[in-house]
C-alpha cells in the first residue's frame, strides 16, 4: 500500500467516525467517561495515608491476594540459573524450613530466597531505615531520624564492612549467593504477590545487595552498641556534680555485682597500658560546660539478654544444657526466622536474622551457642574546631586538616528532597553540629568514634560457629567478632562449657571517654584495643555453670577501664537459682526462663517499708502499702504488688534525683536503679534525698512517704480502669514493625509478667525475642519459641501462631531433621530447587 493509499484510507476512516459520532448525544457519554476515568484515577492514587483503594481492594490484585488459605500448599518446584545443583526444603507443620543442599552456595542462596519469600517487607524496611532512608516510606516525620542515621555513618560503616567482606573469597561467595537468592525471589514477584504492607504504603521492594546485608548487621551494631554510652548526658552531669559525686552516682562496679567471669578469677597482666594525657585535668575532667546535643530514638537500654549453661555435673542426664533468651524490641514479624541449614559438611539449627546469612543462635551436631549483649561502651565523641562554617578544614595537631564532606540527599515521600552535609574527620563523622542538634541552641561540633566503623566481618563468626565441632573451633570462630560486643556462651557434647565476652574494645585510661573529649590533637584518641585473648572469659568452672545477663563482665580486678550500660539484677537472680540447683532437666530451665522473681525489689522493699510513715498516708495509700507488705516479690501477670512497688519506686527515684539532674538541659543521666537501692541501703542520710527546690530539709522518711502518696494517686486511677494487675498495667504488646501506624497488625494485652530487671524480661513492648534450651545429649534435645511466627504475612495463619505459646512459657520441640527423615510425617511441604532457567 502506498502512502497515498494509506492517507486516503485514514481519511475515510476519520470521516466515517465523524458521521457516526458527531450527531450523537456526546454530552452524557462524555460525562460518563469522565466520571469513570476520574473514579479510576482517584482509586489508583494514594491520598495521604489512604492507599490506592481500587488497587488495594481488588480481589485479584490487592490485599485479598495476601489472605493465605488456611490450607495453603507450600509445595513448589523452582529452577534458577544461579544454582549449582539440586536442593530440597522440607517445611514442617510450623513452617520451619529444613534446607538440604549439596553445596554452600546453594544453601545460602536458598536461605536468601526463603528470607525474601517469608520476610520481604521486613528486610527491605529495616535496611532502608538503617541507611537513613525511612523518609522515603514514612514521609517528613522521619527526616531527623534519617539525618541521624547518616550522620552516625551507618552507610559509611556498611560500605567499609562490604569491602572487607568481599575481600575474603569464602565470605564473598556466600554473601553473593545469599544476595542472589533474595533477588531471585524479588525478580519473579508478581505485583499481586507483594506483601500487604507494600500495598498499604504503595511502594515497591528494592533489589538486594551485599551492602544491604552489611547494613542489617550495622543496624544490630547500632541497636546493641550505640545506646550503651551516655557521653553527652554524662558531660552535662560533670558540669553539676563534683568528681566524688559522679563516682557515687555512676559507679563502675555495683556492690551487688555478680560478674560474668566468676569472682576470684585471676587476670593476666594487661598487654597494653593506656596513658592519660597530661592535659586531662584541665581540658577533660575540669571542663564544666555542657553539650546541648541529644540523640533521638536512642536504642533501648534493655536491649540485653540472658544466657546460661550448666555442665553435666549439675544435670540429671550428665550432659550440659545451654539456654539463651535475647531481649530485644518485640515485633511482628519477629526479628528471628527459625531454620535448619544442612550440606554434606555442615548441619545447623536455630534462628537466623532475615537480611543476613547463617544461623545466629542455635546448635549443630556437636555444640550449641548463644549470645547476650556485652553492653560495653565502644563509642566516643570528640569536639571538633572548624575553621569556618564551610567545615572544609578542622584544627588538628597544630594545623588545619581537610575534612571530607559527604553530601547526603534524603528523599522524602510527599515532600521535597532534604540535603545535608556531613564532615568526616580523623575521628569519624561529625554527628552533631549547628545544622543538626535537634533544635537545641549553642551546639558544639561533635565527631563520633565508633568501633562499628572499623573493617570487620561479623558474619564469618557465625559461618564458623555453624560448623564448629568443639571448644577450639568455637574459640577460633568468635575471635574476629568485633561489634556489637557479645557474650558468646558455649556447650559441647564432649562436656565443655564456656563463655567469652567477645568484641573489639578500646583500651581506655581511667575514665577515658565517659565525657565528650577534646578533638584538637591525637592525645585523647584511643591508644589501642584490649588484646583479644584478654577479653573476659571462663571455661569449665568448678561450680558447673556460667551465665551472662548484661552485667559487668568482671569485677574490679579486671585490669582495664570498661564503662558500659550494665544491668545488674538479672545476674543476681540467675546466679542465685543456678547455684542452688542440681539434677537439672530441660524442664527446670524452662521454668527459669519464665521466672518472675524480682531480686531488686527483694533489697528495695525493706528500705521502703522501713522508712514509710504510715500515719502520714491517706486510706488509699495505706491500702497500697498493705499490698506491698503482702507481696511475694514475684512480677507475675496478676501481681498487684509488682505494680504498686514499681510505681512507688519510680516515684521515689524521681523524688530523690529529679531536682538535681534537671539542673542541666539535656538532663544528666539517672543513676541505675541498682545504684539508687545500694545508696539508700548504705546511707539513709544521703545528701541527694533533700529536694533542693524547697526550703525545708527532706529526709528519707519524707521522700519514701511522699513517693507512695503520690504513686497512690496514679495507682487509684489505674485501679479504677481495672489495671492494677501487672500485666494489665504494662499491657505487653508485640507491635508490627510499623508500630502505631498499623495497630491492627499488633498483638496487644498479652497476659505476661516480668520486667527488664527480671529473668522473664518482658516490658511493654520489649523482652525475650527467642527462648532456646539445648540439651547436649547424644540425640540433641532442643526447645525454642519466639513471640511471632514464621510468616511475615499478616494474612497468614503462621503470622503470629507462636505468640500464645510464648506468653504461656511453653516451647516447641525443635526437630533436628536427619537425611533419613525425608518421608517423615513431620514433613508437610517440599520445595524443590534445581539449576535451570
Amino acid at each position, binding site marked *: 500500500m502506498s502512502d497515498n493509499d494509506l492517507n486516503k484510507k485514514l481519511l475515510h476512516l476519520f470521516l466515517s467516525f465523524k458521521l*457516526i*459520532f458527531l*450527531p*450523537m*448525544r*456526546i454530552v*452524557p*457519554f462524555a460525562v*460518563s*467517561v469522565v*466520571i*469513570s476515568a476520574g*473514579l*479510576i484515577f482517584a*482509586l*489508583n492514587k494514594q491520598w495521604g495515608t489512604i492507599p490506592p*483503594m*481500587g*488497587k488495594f*481492594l*481488588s*480481589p*485479584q*490484585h*490487592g*490485599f*485479598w*491476594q*495476601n*489472605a*493465605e*488459605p*488456611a*490450607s495453603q500448599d507450600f509445595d513448589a518446584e523452582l529452577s534458577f540459573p544461579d544454582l549449582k545443583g539440586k536442593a530440597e526444603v522440607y517445611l514442617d507443620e510450623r513452617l520451619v524450613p529444613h534446607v538440604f543442599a549439596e553445596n554452600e552456595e546453594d544453601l545460602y542462596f536458598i536461605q536468601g530466597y526463603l528470607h525474601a519469600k517469608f520476610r520481604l517487607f521486613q528486610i527491605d524496611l529495616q535496611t532502608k531505615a538503617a541507611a537513613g532512608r525511612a523518609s522515603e516510606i514514612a514521609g517528613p516525620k522521619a527526616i531527623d531520624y534519617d539525618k541521624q542515621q547518616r550522620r552516625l555513618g551507618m552507610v559509611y560503616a556498611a560500605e567499609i564492612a562490604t569491602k572487607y567482606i568481599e575481600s575474603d573469597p569464602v565470605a564473598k561467595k556466600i554473601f553473593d549467593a545469599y544476595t542472589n537468592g533474595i533477588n531471585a525471589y524479588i525478580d519473579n514477584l*508478581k505485583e499481586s504477590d507483594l506483601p*500487604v504492607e507494600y500495598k*498499604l504504603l504503595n511502594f515497591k521492594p528494592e533489589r538486594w545487595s551485599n551492602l544491604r546485608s552489611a547494613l542489617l548487621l550495622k543496624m544490630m551494631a547500632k541497636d546493641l552498641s550505640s545506646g550503651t554510652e551516655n557521653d553527652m548526658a554524662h558531660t552535662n552531669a560533670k558540669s553539676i556534680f563534683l568528681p566524688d559525686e559522679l563516682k557515687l552516682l555512676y559507679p563502675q562496679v555495683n556492690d551487688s555485682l555478680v560478674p560474668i567471669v566468676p569472682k576470684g578469677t585471676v587476670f593476666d597482666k594487661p598487654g597494653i597500658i593506656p596513658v592519660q594525657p597530661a592535659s586531662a585535668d584541665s581540658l577533660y575532667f575540669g571542663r564544666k560546660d555542657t553539650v546541648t546535643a541529644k540523640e533521638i530514638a536512642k536504642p533501648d537500654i534493655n536491649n540485653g539478654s540472658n544466657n546460661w549453661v550448666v555442665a553435666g555435673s549439675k544435670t540429671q542426664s550428665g550432659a550440659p544444657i545451654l539456654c539463651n533468651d535475647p531481649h530485644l524490641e518485640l515485633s511482628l514479624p519477629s526479628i528471628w526466622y527459625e531454620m535448619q541449614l544442612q550440606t554434606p559438611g555442615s548441619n545447623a539449627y536455630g534462628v537466623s536474622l532475615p537480611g543476613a546469612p547463617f544461623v545466629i543462635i542455635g546448635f549443630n551436631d556437636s555444640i550449641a551457642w548463644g549470645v547476650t549483649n556485652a553492653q560495653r561502651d565502644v563509642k566516643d565523641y570528640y569536639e571538633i574546631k572548624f575553621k569556618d562554617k564551610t567545615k572544609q578544614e578542622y584544627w588538628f595537631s597544630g594545623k588545619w586538616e581537610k575534612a571530607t564532606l559527604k553530601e547526603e540527599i534524603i528523599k522524602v515521600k510527599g515532600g521535597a528532597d532534604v540535603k545535608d552535609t556531613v564532615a568526616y574527620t580523623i575521628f569519624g563523622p561529625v554527628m552533631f553540629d549547628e545544622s543538626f542538634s535537634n533544635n537545641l541552641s549553642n551546639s558544639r561540633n561533635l565527631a563520633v568514634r565508633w568501633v562499628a566503623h572499623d573493617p570487620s566481618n561479623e558474619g564469618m563468626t557465625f559461618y564458623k560457629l555453624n560448623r564448629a565441632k568443639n571448644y577450639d573451633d568455637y574459640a577460633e570462630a568468635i575471635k574476629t567478632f568485633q561489634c556489637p560486643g557479645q557474650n558468646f556462651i558455649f556447650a559441647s557434647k564432649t562436656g565443655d562449657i564456656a563463655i567469652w565476652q567477645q568484641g573489639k574494645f578500646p583500651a581506655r585510661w581511667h575514665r577515658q571517654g565517659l565525657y565528650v573529649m577534646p578533638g584538637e590533637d591525637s592525645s585523647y584518641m584511643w591508644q589501642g584495643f584490649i588484646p583479644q585473648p584478654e577479653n573476659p572469659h571462663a571455661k569449665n568452672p568448678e561450680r558447673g555453670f556460667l551465665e551472662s545477663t548484661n552485667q559487668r563482665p568482671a569485677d574490679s580486678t579486671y585490669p582495664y577501664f570498661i564503662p558500659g550500660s550494665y544491668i545488674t539484677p538479672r545476674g543476681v537472680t540467675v546466679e542465685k537459682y543456678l547455684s542452688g540447683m542440681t539434677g537439672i532437666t530441660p524442664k527446670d530451665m524452662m521454668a527459669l526462663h519464665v521466672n518472675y522473681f524480682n531480686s531488686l525489689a527483694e533489697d528495695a522493699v525493706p528500705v521502703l517499708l522501713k522508712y514509710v510513715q504510715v500515719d502520714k498516708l491517706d486510706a488509699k495509700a495505706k491500702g497500697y502499702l498493705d499490698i506491698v507488705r503482702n507481696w511475694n516479690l514475684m512480677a507475675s501477670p496478676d501481681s498487684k504488688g509488682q505494680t504498686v512497688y514499681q510505681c512507688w519506686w519510680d516515684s521515689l527515684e524521681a523524688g530523690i534525683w529529679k531536682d538535681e539532674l534537671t539542673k542541666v538541659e539535656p538532663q544528666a543521666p539517672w543513676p541505675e536503679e541498682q545504684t539508687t537501692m545500694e545508696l539508700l541501703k548504705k546511707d539513709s542520710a544521703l545528701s541527694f534525698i533533700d529536694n533542693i527546690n524547697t526550703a525545708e530539709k527532706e529526709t528519707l522518711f519524707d521522700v519514701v512517704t511522699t513517693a507512695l502518696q503520690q504513686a497512690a494517686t496514679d495507682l487509684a486511677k489505674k485501679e479504677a480502669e481495672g489495671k492494677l494487675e501487672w500485666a494489665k498495667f504494662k499491657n505487653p504488646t508485640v507491635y508490627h514493625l510499623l508500630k502505631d501506624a*498499623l*495497630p*491492627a*497488625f499488633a498483638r496487644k494485652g498479652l497476659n505476661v509478667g516480668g520486667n527488664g530487671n527480671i529473668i522473664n524480661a518482658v516490658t511493654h513492648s520489649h523482652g525475650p525475642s527467642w527462648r532456646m534450651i539445648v540439651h547436649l545429649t547424644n540425640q540433641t534435645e532442643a526447645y525454642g519459641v519466639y513471640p511471632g511466627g514464621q510468616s511475615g504475612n*499478616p*494474612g*497468614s*495463619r503462621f*503470622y503470629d501462631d507462636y505468640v500464645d505459646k510464648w506468653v504461656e512459657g511453653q516451647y516447641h520441640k525443635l526437630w533436628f531433621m536427619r537425611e533419613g527423615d525425608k518421608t517423615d510425617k513431620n514433613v508437610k511441604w517440599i520445595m524443590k530447587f534445581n539449576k535451570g532457567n
Partner: protein
Amino acid sequence: MKFITAIILTALLAFISGLLSFSPWWGFAITSFLVALLVHQKAGKAFLAGFLGLLLLWCGLAWWIDMQNHGVLSARIASVLPLGGNSMLLILVTGVVGGLVAGFAAMSGSYLRSSSKS
C-alpha cells in the same frame, strides 16, 4: 434476559481481565464498557448491570478468599480501614467500589452505542 446476560458477561470478562498479568486492576472497566456496547441497554440498566456484575464478582471472590483464610486478614484490614474490624462490611465495600467503576464504564458504553444509533 439481556440484563442477566450483561451481568454475567461483565463479571466473566472482568474475572478474565484480572487473570491477565499485563492488565491493571481497572482492566474490568474496559471489559464492562465493551459488554455494554455489545449488549445494548438503556444507560440506567447498563449501569446497574455493570454495577451488579462487579459487585457480585468482587464480593464473591472476596468472600471465597476470606472463607479459606478463616477471616484472618480481613479482620485486620477492616481495622486498618475504619470499618470496626467487620469483615463482612469490608467484603461489601470491596464489591461496591468495583461495582461503581464498572457501572460508570458500562453506562459510558451504553451512551456510546445509543448515540451512534440515533
